[in-house]
């Protein structure tokens, strides 16, 4: 089913929760509404389900306006954030409920068959007689999903369905839910504030902020070509550097910033010389092993902080004017701090280069960098990095 939102406005007293949102969600698409809390994404979902009515604008299902249709006649299947399993009914009765309402009643035998099949698909068939309070969070999640899907809804609505699960289970369920809805070919609208969830599961995604749509696109679009600073920062995070376009040469744009000149590959020539812009540079685009590559976009700053994240290490680099760039390096074998890996990255630290990085060794007096933990380097440690011109995103200044 196609879901079409046309200029939807919703106010709660003085607060505008949704401010003129228009979206086209295609049949069979896995569509995400993504945004920080309070951006209006849950309100939008509840309007599609019919639990609240837009003040302005229209909602169309396959071209038919449904604004005045009450929730029970919309044929959507919703998974609630708290699952909303009825505590007085068993797992089986919870799932079967939707097949016992007017218009969807079916013979008991068929009902048993459909519920059984759905529970099987969820690996829940052994727990059919249990009451929800005797299920784990993940199991409750599956029951909620089964309950929403067993009625063959025209559209599946999910309201932060994974937010109550632990991190490991969340990753598993991402894959499972995506596989399931793609298998069924059902139009799915999924609300979340977790950008990783959205990037990994969505066909397309709408980024919302303060009731407005900031950008709609595939995960790759959003990540690689964010429409504005908010999207760039919200999806994956970015170093946002204000600057001014100096020149446009051969598909490259030269941008002057407070700590040096940047070169960006700009195939569209979107900005004219003199334009005020903001550069968005992903932390992982900063290469701290600066020995290779050209001299383009090569900068030096002071390493002020290294944060050990397990699979990656984040480094904070203070530039000459005080601006702090964040760099993210991932991969095995990063021992707490990038400087040691290739050695030469630390200018003025020949003693360390190639050194065995022994804490307490005489060679490293100036570099607390070696201690191996997330230590705070002295302000004097200089570090160089460079960024590929393909990875410099030029955005309009706001």
């Amino acid at each position, binding site marked *: 089913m196609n879901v079409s939102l046309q200029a939807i406005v919703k106010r709660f007293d003085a607060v505008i929760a949704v401010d003129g949102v228009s979206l086209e969600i295609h049949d069979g698409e896995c569509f995400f509404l993504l945004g920080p809390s309070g951006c209006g994404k849950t309100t939008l979902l509840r309007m599609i389900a*019919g639990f609240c009515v837009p003040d302005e604008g229209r909602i169309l299902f396959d071209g038919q306006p449904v604004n005045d249709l009450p929730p029970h006649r919309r044929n959507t299947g919703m998974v609630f954030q708290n699952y909303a399993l009825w505590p007085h009914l068993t797992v089986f009765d919870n799932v079967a409920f939707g097949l016992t309402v007017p218009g969807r009643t079916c013979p008991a035998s068929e009902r048993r068959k459909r519920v059984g099949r759905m529970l099987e698909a969820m690996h829940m068939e052994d727990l059919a007689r249990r009451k929800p309070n005797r299920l784990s969070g993940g199991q409750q999640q599956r029951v909620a999903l089964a309950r929403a899907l067993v*009625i063959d809804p025209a559209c599946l*609505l999910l309201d932060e369905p994974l937010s109550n699960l632990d991190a490991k289970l969340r990753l598993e369920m991402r894959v499972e839910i995506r596989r399931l809805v793609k298998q069924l070919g059902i139009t799915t609208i999924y609300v979340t504030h977790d950008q990783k969830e959205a990037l990994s599961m969505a066909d397309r995604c709408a980024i919302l902020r303060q009731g407005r749509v900031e950008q709609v696109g595939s995960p790759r679009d959003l990540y690689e070509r964010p429409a504005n600073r908010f999207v760039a920062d919200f999806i994956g995070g970015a170093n946002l550097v204000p600057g001014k376009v100096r020149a446009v040469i051969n598909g490259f744009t030269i941008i002057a910033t407070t700590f040096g000149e940047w070169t960006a590959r700009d195939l569209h020539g979107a900005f004219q010389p003199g334009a005020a812009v903001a550069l968005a540079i992903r932390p992982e685009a900063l290469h701290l092993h600066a020995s290779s590559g050209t001299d383009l976009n090569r900068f030096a700053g002071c390493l002020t902080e290294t944060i050990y994240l397990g699979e990656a290490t984040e480094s904070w680099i203070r530039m000459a004017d005080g601006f702090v760039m964040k760099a993210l390096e991932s991969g095995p074998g990063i021992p707490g701090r990038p400087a040691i890996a290739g050695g030469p990255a630390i200018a003025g630290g020949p003693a360390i280069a190639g050194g065995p990085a022994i804490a307490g060794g005489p060679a490293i007096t100036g570099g607390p960098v070696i201690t191996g933990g997330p230590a705070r380097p002295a302000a004097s440690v200089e570090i160089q990095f460079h960024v590929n011109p393909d990875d410099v995103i030029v955005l309009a200044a706001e």
Partner: protein
Amino acid sequence: MKNTGAILIAAAILSLLGLFFFWPLALTVKSAFVFNRQWTLVIFSELFKNPLYIEGLLNSLALAIVTTGLVVCMALPLAMLAARFDFWGKSWLTGLILLPMILPPFVGAIGIRQILGPYGVINAVLVNLHLMDWPQAVDWLGRGRFWAVAVTEALHLYPIFYLNAVAAIANVDPTLEEAAENMGCAGWRRFRRITLPLIMPGLFAGGTLVFIWSFTELGTPLMFDYSRVTAVQIYNGIQDIGASPLPYALVVVMLVASAGFYALGKLVFGRSGYEMMAKGSTAGSTQQLSGARAGAAFGLFAIVFLLAILPHIGVILTSFSQAWYRSVTPSQWTLEWYRQALGHGLTLPSIRNSCYYSLLAMGADLILGVAAAVVIVRSSLRWRGTLDTLIMLPLAVPGIVLAFGYITMSQPGRLFEGLNPTDNPTVLLIIAYAVRRLPYVVRAAVAGLQQISASLEEAAENLGCPPVQTVARITLPLISANLMAGGLLAFSFAMLEVSDSLMLAQKQAYFPITKALYELFQVLGNGPYLAAALGVWSMLFLGITLLLTNRLMGQRLGAVFRL
């Protein structure tokens, strides 16, 4: 929920309240200010010139203050113990001490008179111990019976305060107290500076209820022949209401005073209700007592319980005694009174009448209560808070005032002439019972609805279930325990209702239990014994209902008695 539905329900409830709550009150007030078809204050000036009425008001006030004081002294320590400590026997003791609430003080008066009277148990004990001779027998009821009335009412009303206090204390997040202790504030200081301020709104809610109740109590003073209180003066005034408008003014004074106390309570304490950031979890917050301290806690509960049921033990003994005069226990036992009671024209019909009135009132309350609670909790109506307040108002208006209003509005020539209770009080009695107990059912239903997440209902609608069916299949089953508890309370209180019953039932064929009890008690000779037998039956009946209710609601029972 859809606004149109909510508005319809709210309008229906408000118009019922308007007709059977505000209208009779307004008529009464108007009658107090209109004399010879002119607006005047002459009735009030007559009233306040009469020392008899002034004395009645002062007595009522004193009775309320003393009763409330006694109640707080009895119930607050018990509540602290129950909410914070575990000890042997606690689970059934905490249930038992609620028992007096459903034993009408009205009936207990028979027992108290038997125990404290000049030929009663206490004097008999003293004589048996050779401390006294019969000629020196003391009337322990006291002159004017003031203290007998106050003690009897306190022994009846303390459970209401206790329940409020327990609920308030259980609601205090234990980490707040732990935080105080962590900063070096413990024991009595911690109680005074942290716990007490936090539970104050709950205590005050219970206290106001007890205060207004004892201020306007009719049955107990009547049974003790303590006639110089306003309630009894109003009751006696109904007989010649056509001749003298003074009772109207008395009622207005009582209404204003009660509403004043209620408003004062709301102003001073109602608003400062503190939101707990985390709800108190009962797990881990109680401390196990053992040895002498457990014994002391047990003893305190046991003493209060024994004191409270003493009057009713008196009633039970009376009902089985052939003669009980100048002896510690009855000198001869018999079942004669039960046999006679069965044959008496007042008893069986009155039981049937009471059940009939109370069941219908309970049914009406359940329907209205659920509808109102759904609007209050689930709708987005702007003035749903006002609706809530209006529905709770009958709690603040004394039964005697409302009953008087019903009599006023059904006087010849008025709109509800057809309901005049001198012919047939059935409709008015059911309405009176229903209106007065509606707040309990609403509170119970609201508490239930607030506990279940709205998304449980939304999930049903999302799967195609129409709203009315959703209420039937999801909402009602989930709040059924609350509804049963609220319904049982409404029922048992209707069975016990004294002031409405005494004032409205004027023909023997329509007497409910309480009126029959009072009439029997007045009969010379075997009257008090028959009344005792009937009282025992009603006690049994109501005791079972309350135990059921307590089982269903647990600690949440207190929420029902909140103003």
